[in-house]
């Protein structure tokens, strides 16, 4: 099953490589990994999207907790949570495509953030599956380039990950 794991770790050189190294050394899946400092500059927050059986996810959480730099780990799938990912996609926008792309972007609540003679760049946010759905919905041959940030996640309501 797909899991989203959030963690707080010391914002130190090499911390990211400890996490990435752990996943490769123990042959765990890694779908995406995002990391950035938090409002407290000494802490980084990381969101990891992974998949595996319950036993594997349990081991992943334990192994992450074992890293000396990791302060807190939360499996977002243990409760209710929100997931958002940002995607920028550059599409062909000529002739009939031009109007169609604008419409599709509106339907998916995207924003066109760059307009050129032959192309649009559309900004979309949502869960990973929503972004997938957009790419499915438009004409594949119109896609010039995509870039995705990987998922960020946060617990709903009073589920808070903080030191």
């Amino acid at each position, binding site marked *: 099953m797909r899991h989203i794991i959030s963690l707080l770790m*010391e914002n130190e050189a090499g911390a990211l*490589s400890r996490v990435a190294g752990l996943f490769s*050394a123990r042959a765990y899946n890694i779908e995406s990994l995002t990391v950035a400092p938090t409002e407290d500059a000494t802490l980084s927050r990381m969101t990891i999207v992974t998949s595996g059986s319950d*036993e594997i996810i349990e*081991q992943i959480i*334990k192994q992450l907790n*074992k890293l*000396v*730099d990791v302060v807190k780990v939360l499996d977002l799938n243990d409760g209710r949570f929100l997931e958002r990912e940002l995607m920028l996609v550059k599409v062909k926008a000529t002739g009939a495509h031009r109007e169609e792309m604008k419409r599709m972007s509106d339907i998916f609540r995207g924003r066109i953030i760059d307009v050129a003679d032959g192309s649009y760049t559309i900004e979309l946010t949502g869960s990973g599956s929503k972004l997938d759905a957009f790419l499915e919905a438009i004409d594949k041959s119109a896609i010039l380039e995509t870039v995705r940030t990987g998922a960020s996640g946060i617990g709903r309501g009073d589920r808070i990950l903080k*030191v």
Partner: protein
Amino acid sequence: MQLTGAEIVIRCLHEEKVEFVFGYPGGAVLNIYDAIFQQDGFKHILVRHEQAAVHAADAYARSTGKVGVALVTSGPGATNAVTGIATAYMDSIPMVVLSGQVPTPAIGQDAFQECDMVGITRPCVKHNFLVKDVKDLASTIKKAFYIAASGRPGPVVVDIPKDITAHTTKFEYPDSVQMRSYNPVLKGHSGQIKKALKLLLEAKRPMIYTGGGVVLGDAAELLTKLVRKLGYPMTNTLMGLGGYPATDKQCLGMLGMHGTLEANMAMQECDVLLAVGARFDDRVIGNPSHFFESSRKIIHIDVDPSSISKRVKVDVPIVGDVRSVLADMLELLSESDKTPNESALAAWWQKIDGWRGRNCLSYDRNSAIIKPQYVVEKLWEVTKGEAYVTSDVGQHQMWAAQYYKFDQPRRWLNSGGLGTMGVGLPYAMGAQFAHPNAQVACVTGEGSIQMNIQELSTCKQYHLPIKVILLNNRYLGMVRQWQEFFYENRYSESYMDSLPDFVKLAESYGHVGMQIDKSSDVEGALKEAFAMKDRFVFMDFITDQKENVFPMVPNGKGLSEIILAEDL
């Protein structure tokens, strides 16, 4: 007062009451070596290869429980240390390795003798640090010692660029360490301990399985109390030998791939299993699905939560320091009005005695050709079971584990997890430095001993009265055994040709060399060697080439699919 980084390193080691630093100098650590020259707080031991420095520091830690310290230079010095670090990591040995690094401005420039030590060691250390500011040096070393020794112990690397060792700052050594990201749980959950005890007392066929955690956690005494009080059978892993007296009748010997029939069968057929500081690894329980063909309740005590339910799902996990949990368990037991089920236990012991009666460790004691098992048995007798015994890796390691009966913890030093050939001689050095008046024996093979043979020179320099017990069968014996069983006798590259004359080799270093090729000479030779209390003696025993290690649970098989010597 301002001190240089090099002086700070020395002062930190003094603060940590370090007795020995095992190392080898080089460009990046010259400032540190200059500071070593001007101090007498600890003794520096000059080895002949960095790998041996790390192994010796590791053995010092294994045999004393204190943190071992090694010092190496950058680049090749650091990479040579990696095998030693990985060895210590797999066996959870507390150790601090200080490595030199090229000066900070040169990092990343492919400088002479540069390597990314923090990157290379990341997967095989508990933690590592690159010191980028001399102001952080003392607090980093303090953290390194704290992390190495606390929780589940392990090696910590501190990589120190050369310019940092020359920069100056005020020296302040912190009294304690506070880390929000690292707080190992030591006290076991009382509810879980209660549940565990209830399960244990209701057992009809109980079994206690104990590992290296008992030795590392200094819990041998408490474990012994608990096992005796319950009257239950127990077994040790390879790493746990000495955690309970091997000569006691409740001890069924070692379990696992080359464990005894009684230990393996009792593991398979028990209804309640108490695992203490052990991790159910592949050499111990064989095939996990076969293990679960018979059902049992499992209680698992371990300081590392990630060791619990990793390979085997357990029913009652208890995260905590083994010693603390066992103490709590003993207290609860003394307050409990329940006692073990005597009649069920008697029937269980009867069954176990049936397995024991098969005498699975028997071998031909009347052989004229030297049987390797016989040498180890005689070694045990001659040293009265009190020696520090190190081994390398292979058949001789298993024979040492099977036939030397360890009654005390920290006496058996071997590379259980990584299985590193070449540890035996440097381990013996580390143990002999830590216990200068003790008998130290290195049981080895002609393959393994050659992997760190250069240390004969270190042993000469420091007059170490180690006794090398070479079980020389002219084969990489364990490889040959597997080739015999699983590769239809195709002995691919397992014959050790062109061996040196070990007697002459030892003599060339000023040591005593002996070659023994008759069974009848074994005991006398051992007595003669151990009577030379101030000499290093290299004993080359010419043993039976075709002897195999039994019992054996073939790779991927279940514990009850064990093969005995008599089956063949």
